[in-house]
């Protein structure tokens, strides 16, 4: 939401709070999206698109770069040339800034880098908060200033930005990722005048004077020799020496201006405290709560917040501590702060304490509660306190963890605590954000909102934690004892124990159909018991019915929001309703009266539809909540995975986890998410057995198989089978079977099904029908289906139909319903999964591919399957090359050893292996057979090298290395690597799942984004054409290149995959992937793919360097000349239509230019195809010209 940048109290998160200052105080932003800092850049881009002005009446330039390294270079340049510049980042992105941070600091440029402190990827990636990233910058020469709350993020953005101009030392301004960056609080906004009064125009002018300009030429960035480098480095010391005082001076000025007073180190607690915790970041707030709790009971404790962390002003630090302090615990996610504190005392002649211990907390946004803080204070009282402890986990391995009271609740009763369980798509979070705005901005109450999401992109559960109270809210942790709990989806009662979070006597609201009695009866036994025991007041509303009757089918957010206000009693009911209506008017007024009216109707209808559920004295059911996973699940899944799935991951001890981030495959199959309302039902009589349904299924939830008829013995009654249409496989049955609990109901299978009833063309071989009625029967059928014998891979054709009889080794991922990427990934695993090494760039592919709790990659009956791994975002191609080089070296080693043992194992084996043609399935199977025989023979050889060969022998069977990622990686941040890997000639296959936008981080523009499309960082429609990476790759001449779109021509996709894999060199496949970021129903994803091709937006081709040797053209166009206008394709997608709504003139201009580009590009391709044909055309024999006739 964009708000006017005017002084007032507004509910917002720290990202928005920091960005609103940065935007007004700068001229050039160079940015790159990375969670959770992306919204800061996005806000600036949106403001610039709306022509909002900075303090000097200019619209800042917001430039998206190809990587954080690029952004760092661009801001360095902008600063060097005299602009006021800023940027935003975190985590690995911040690491990419580091080289330039040294330069920027070394040259004393005034600059603020705003950072949402986030964990660094180590044994795993984490998008969540800790200080791993900022701690890696301590040595760069940047000042480091930490904000603990959204208000501070706003204030310190101003203090850092104005101090850096005067002090010339650049600042890293940071706050905790998610916990602060995404926590919504009431923020007092600084007005433009406030900022002006803090800002020294002289300092701005001095910065301009230092600008590099040919009008006053100077040179910076020299190379220096041993004679002078050292001295020159020390020359800047004074700026660092003066900085702490300068920051404090600015904080004092700020305090005068706003009344909000800050110190370099802020102490909170008893003035005579003996025990003190030193901490930095949002944890300070929870610690303050603990301090109040303890001191009210007579303890003497305090907590010190480190605000200016670099330079670490020892004097200020020591002064801030009470003179009485005897013991100190330093809390820090990584412990460098501990060293600073120890050093401070070591360097002090006057101050001594008896004990300093350090401990780690909060890694990857681990919960940090007052109870944990109290445990730390308790530890300080012990004669032998544990040092280098951990708090917040149970470390049963190295015994570092402190015990804490998990039941303790320090929150005051006058704080209303509400927790809402919603489904991702139901608008619960949006409605709650809205409620915070209402209470935060329209009343004197303080408000806090924090939102938790699960790891899935489809069917995800969201949990909203909202607090409202008469004092500022410092509880920087999830609500543990709520007075209001709302369940926005009735299906959750079967899956989640929502009552544990409810305080005794709390209100429980559930969205469920039926009478109050029916609602009560629908609760499982555990839930009924808890409600009775805790004396919860239960209310029910059929929100879906109310929404439908209000003209907004499916949109329950307004209904549930109204019900919350009606029951929670934070505001008088009438006032609350008035405020909700006002908020609706504000949100939707510009969108149209109709939306406003329908929402208003929903508000009015909601109150009337609320029913109180009478809670009986005893439970009325014996039905228990079903187990999280089936009893058949393997041990690890039962012990670890299931706990994570149940939301109990916090309770797992250290010993539960692999030590190096290695996790087992095949775990999504135990989740049984039951997301589909409708599932496909197969009519065998209509089916033409084309297997297209299985090909397009994004979740591998519909599969086909053929099997000897005899295998049908014992089939469930409802199991469907028909004669397999195959001359090679007579007497076989054929079945299409859906996995009813894993299907997400996207309907793509039914949409692509070409088999129609001749007399009723509405009727297809696959039709969607409601899942609940089919569930039990299809579960049995699915189980039976999985036990059927599978065809011999070596005999299967490698065409579309054959491919779908191969087991997908990628199933039931957390990808979006109707995902356009996963069908390609699945196909890859069907062909090569049993010999596949995957290097996966960070992004959607790595999230649905590798985000815990479960793993979609799985194994075949022989236990083989994809070996998958994610290194980083930027290095994926290089990482994949490394996998290739390793596999090659190990293969060479195995071959060398093989020749050594030739005599012992028999020449036949060696020869057979050398001769084995591993380009086919049969060849691979044969190689495996020989390797098996080899291992057996070697087992009898008593030599160390024989054991080595046994270990490495499997490398004699070909490994297929694939590098996967999206366009953000391949076109932007990883392009240098992609380009380099293509140039090496090595056998690495690169599959780019091109959604033309950064999908995972929320739709930011990439160089693949087409002209005219609206995306974040091109809010006014991208005005440059999509980069033609395929054409660029062709220029190498030795790279296999294909551009495919499964929805346009699936056979071409399959051909491209096979050709790429068989090409003994680098291959690049760019695959069109429809995406929810395009803004249309994914049901039509494959139709849009077709239109993309037919309109010439996505010409399909294959370039194969091998072909000329066979007398065939190296470049083949697989799609016909554009036959529909580009607008026929773009009109169906909101990403293009957005601009038509917002700026029709620009939309037309860009649309026309894009059409012209399509025409030009097609001509280029046509020429390439013609030239390739001509190059291999039989040359006409050269006929000597006839001799002139003799006259």
């Amino acid at each position: 939401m964009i708000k006017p940048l005017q002084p007032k109290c507004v509910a917002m998160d720290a990202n928005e709070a920091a960005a609103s200052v940065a935007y007004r105080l700068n001229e050039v932003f160079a940015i790159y999206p990375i969670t959770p800092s992306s919204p800061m850049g996005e806000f600036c881009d949106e403001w610039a698109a709306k022509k909002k002005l900075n303090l000097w009446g200019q619209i800042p330039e917001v430039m998206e770069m190809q990587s954080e390294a690029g952004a760092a270079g661009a801001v360095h340049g902008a600063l060097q040339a005299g602009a006021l510049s800023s940027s935003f980042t975190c985590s690995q992105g911040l690491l990419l800034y580091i080289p330039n941070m040294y330069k920027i600091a070394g040259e004393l440029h005034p600059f603020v880098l705003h950072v949402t402190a986030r964990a660094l990827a180590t044994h795993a990636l984490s998008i969540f908060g800790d200080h791993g990233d900022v701690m890696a910058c301590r040595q760069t020469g940047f000042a480091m200033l930490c904000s603990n709350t959204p208000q501070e993020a706003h204030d310190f953005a101003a203090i850092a930005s104005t101090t850096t101009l005067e002090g010339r030392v650049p600042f890293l301004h940071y706050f905790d990722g998610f916990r602060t960056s995404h926590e919504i609080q009431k923020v007092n906004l600084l007005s433009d005048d406030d900022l002006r009064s803090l800002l020294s125009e002289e300092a701005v002018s001095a910065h301009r004077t230092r600008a590099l300009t040919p009008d006053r030429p100077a040179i910076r960035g020299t190379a220096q020799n041993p004679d002078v480098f050292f001295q020159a480095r020390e020359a800047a010391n004074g700026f660092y020496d003066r900085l702490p005082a300068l920051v404090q001076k600015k904080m004092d000025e700020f305090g005068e201006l706003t009344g909000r007073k800050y110190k370099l180190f802020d102490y909170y607690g008893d003035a005579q405290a003996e025990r003190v915790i030193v901490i930095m970041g949002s944890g300070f707030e929870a610690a303050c709560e603990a301090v109040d709790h303890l001191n009210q009971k007579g303890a003497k404790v305090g907590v010190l917040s480190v605000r200016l962390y670099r330079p670490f002003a020892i004097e200020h630090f020591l002064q801030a501590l009470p003179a009485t302090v005897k013991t100190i615990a330093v809390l820090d996610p990584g412990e460098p702060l501990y060293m600073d504190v120890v050093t401070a005392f070591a360097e002090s002649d006057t101050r001594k304490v008896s004990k300093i211990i350090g401990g780690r907390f909060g890694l990857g946004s681990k919960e940090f509660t007052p109870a944990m803080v109290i445990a730390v204070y308790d530890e300080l009282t012990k004669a032998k306190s544990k040092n280098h402890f951990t708090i917040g986990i149970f470390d049963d391995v190295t015994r570092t963890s402190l015990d804490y009271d998990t039941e303790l609740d320090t929150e005051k009763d006058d704080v209303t605590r509400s927790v809402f369980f919603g489904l991702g798509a139901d608008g619960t979070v949006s409605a709650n954000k809205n409620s915070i705005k209402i209470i935060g901005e329209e009343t004197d109450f303080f408000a806090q909102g924090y939102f938790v999401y699960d790891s899935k992109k489809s069917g995800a559960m969201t949990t909203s934690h909202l607090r409202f109270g008469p004092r500022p809210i410092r509880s920087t942790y999830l609500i543990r004892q709520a007075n209001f709990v709302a369940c926005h989806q009735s299906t959750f009662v079967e899956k989640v124990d929502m009552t544990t979070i409810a305080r005794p006597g709390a209100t429980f609201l559930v969205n469920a159909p039926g009478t109050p009695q029916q609602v009560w009866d629908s609760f499982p036994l555990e839930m009924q018991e808890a409600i009775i025991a805790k004396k919860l007041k239960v209310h029910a509303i059929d929100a879906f019915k109310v929404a439908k009757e209000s003209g907004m089918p499916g949109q329950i957010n307004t209904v549930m929001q109204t019900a919350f206000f009606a029951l929670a009693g934070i505001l008088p009911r009438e006032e609350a309703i008035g405020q909700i209506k006002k908020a609706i008017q504000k949100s939707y007024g510009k969108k149209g009266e109709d939306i406003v009216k329908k929402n208003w109707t929903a508000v009015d209808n909601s109150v009337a539809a609320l029913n109180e559920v009478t809670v009986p004295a005893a439970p009325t059911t014996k039905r228990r909540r079903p187990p999280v996973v089936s009893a058949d699940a393997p041990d690890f899944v039962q012990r670890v995975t299931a706990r994570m799935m149940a939301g109990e991951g916090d309770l797992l001890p250290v010993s539960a986890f692999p030590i190096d981030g290695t996790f087992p495959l095949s775990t999504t199959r135990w989740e049984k998410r039951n997301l589909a309302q409708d599932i496909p039902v197969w009519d065998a009589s209509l089916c033409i057995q084309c297997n297209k349904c299985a090909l397009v299924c994004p979740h591998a939830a519909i599969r086909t198989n053929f099997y000897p008829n005899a295998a049908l013995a014992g089939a469930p009654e409802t199991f469907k089978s028909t004669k397999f249409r195959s001359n090679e496989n007579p007497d076989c049955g054929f079945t299409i079977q859906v996995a009813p609990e894993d299907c997400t109901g996207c309907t793509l299978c039914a949409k692509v099904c070409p088999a129609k009833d001749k007399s009723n063309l509405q009727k297809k071989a696959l039709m969607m029908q409601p899942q609940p009625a089919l569930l039990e029967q299809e579960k049995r059928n699915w189980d039976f289906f999985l036990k059927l014998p599978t065809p011999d891979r070596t005999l299967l054709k490698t065409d579309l139909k054959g491919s779908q009889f191969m087991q997908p080794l990628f199933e039931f991922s957390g990808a979006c319903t109707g995902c356009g990427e996963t069908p390609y990934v699945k196909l890859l695993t069907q062909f090569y999964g049993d010999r596949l090494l995957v290097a996966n760039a960070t992004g959607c592919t790595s999230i649905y591919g590798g985000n815990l709790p479960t793993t979609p990659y799985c194994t075949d009956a022989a236990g083989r399957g994809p070996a998958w791994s994610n290194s980083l975002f930027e290095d994926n191609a290089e990482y994949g090359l490394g996998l290739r080089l390793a596999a090659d070296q190990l293969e060479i080693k195995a071959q060398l050893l093989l020749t050594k043992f030739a005599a012992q194992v028999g020449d036949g084996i060696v020869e057979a292996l050398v001769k084995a043609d591993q380009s086919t399935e049969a060849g691979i199977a044969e190689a495996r057979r020989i390797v098996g025989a080899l291992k057996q023979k070697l087992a009898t050889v008593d030599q160390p090298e024989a054991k080595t060969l046994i270990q490495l022998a499997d490398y004699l069977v070909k490994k297929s290395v694939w590098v996967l990622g999206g366009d953000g990686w391949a076109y932007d941040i990883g392009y240098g690597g992609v380009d380099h890997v293509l140039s090496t000639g090595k056998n690495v296959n690169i599959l780019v799942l091109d959604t033309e936008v950064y999908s995972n981080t929320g739709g930011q523009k990439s160089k693949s984004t087409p002209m005219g499309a609206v995306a974040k960082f091109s809010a006014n429609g991208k005005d440059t054409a999509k980069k033609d990476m395929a054409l660029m790759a062709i220029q190498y001449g030795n790279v296999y290149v294909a551009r495919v779109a499964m929805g346009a021509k699936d056979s071409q996709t399959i051909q491209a995959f096979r050709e790429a894999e068989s090409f003994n060199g680098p291959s690049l496949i760019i695959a069109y992937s429809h995406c929810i970021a395009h803004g249309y129903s994914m049901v039509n994803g494959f139709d849009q793919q077709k239109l993309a091709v037919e309109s010439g937006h996505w010409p399909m081709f294959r370039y194969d360097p091998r072909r000329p040797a066979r007398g065939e053209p190296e470049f083949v166009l697989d799609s016909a000349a554009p036959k529909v206008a580009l607008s026929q394709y773009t009109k169906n997608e909101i990403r293009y239509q957005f601009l038509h709504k917002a700026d029709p003139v620009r939309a037309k201009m860009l649309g026309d230019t894009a059409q012209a580009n399509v025409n030009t590009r097609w001509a280029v391709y046509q020429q390439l195809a013609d030239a390739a044909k001509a190059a291999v055309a039989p040359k006409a024999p050269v006929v000597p010209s006839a001799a002139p006739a003799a006259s």
Partner: protein
Amino acid sequence: MALDLSTTYLGIKLANPIMPGASPLVDSLDRVKAMQDAGASAIVMHSLFEEQIDREMKAEYAHLRRHEDVFAEAANFFPESDDYALGPQEYLAHIRKIKETCKLPVIASLNGTQIGGWVEYANLIQQAGADALELNLYYLATDGAISGEEVETDVLEIVRTVKAGVKIPVAVKLSPFFSSLSHMAKEIELNGADGLVLFNRFYQPDIDLEALEVVPKLDLSSPEELRLRLRWLAILFGQVKLPMACTGGVHSAHDVVKSILAGASVVQVVSSLLKHNPAHIRTLLTGLEQWMQEKEYASVAQMRGALSLQNCPDPAAFERANYLKILQVWRTN
């Protein structure tokens, strides 16, 4: 001889009887200006469809809002923008722009789905500055449970309610598919309408034999379609006092002349403007003047209804007998 081309339609005095009909022609302000320059006497906007507004809102929810706040890394997938409006805002803004661009009276057009929607949007259109409103009334009676009487009652209720809700004049655009169109027209008049527009043209289904799909199509009108209009203009002229607009099949100046002679106060042209260009209005006007001069008509008023059912020398030509007579002629040949 100075010709008087002026006419009065919906109580508005117009310089001549030719105006563009409801179509996307008015999407471009350049084209609106060009039509004004070519001599159009009024501008008729394309229809505001309540159904479309409803769909846009649903699409906005389904494709934007539904994906918001679902996943920790992506609170949404598009830049937040309040620059675009859903619902009637875009249409209403366009009325304002046309009013700013040209001096001609603007007749807006509306197709509702619910009675509340009709009245609400009619009001908004009035507020946006439209000089008159054309109600684009059609109903495809696919449900066997709904009688013709019910359809007619609904139409009349819409007319009555909209009229009660707005001050600007209201024309009713009809389809020819009523059992007694004459009766219907009279009823519409009784319920307060200020004019009639004959007739609406619809998308018609076609069958794609390759894809085995039904494809809705709307082709440009052909001059043959005019005859149905001529007949009903002639029949209704005099029976109802309402001024009538002829639309559908007017391509040439002679078509304009015929329409007026049958009883139209104005003609609305679309297909011929799309085929040629907005300047074609000038050609039509010139042709009309030429014909009037040749036939020595001094004014359009003098022409109007001269060959209507009540005024033509052979009323049977418009009536059912017509059909029999032609057959007889054919038989005797």
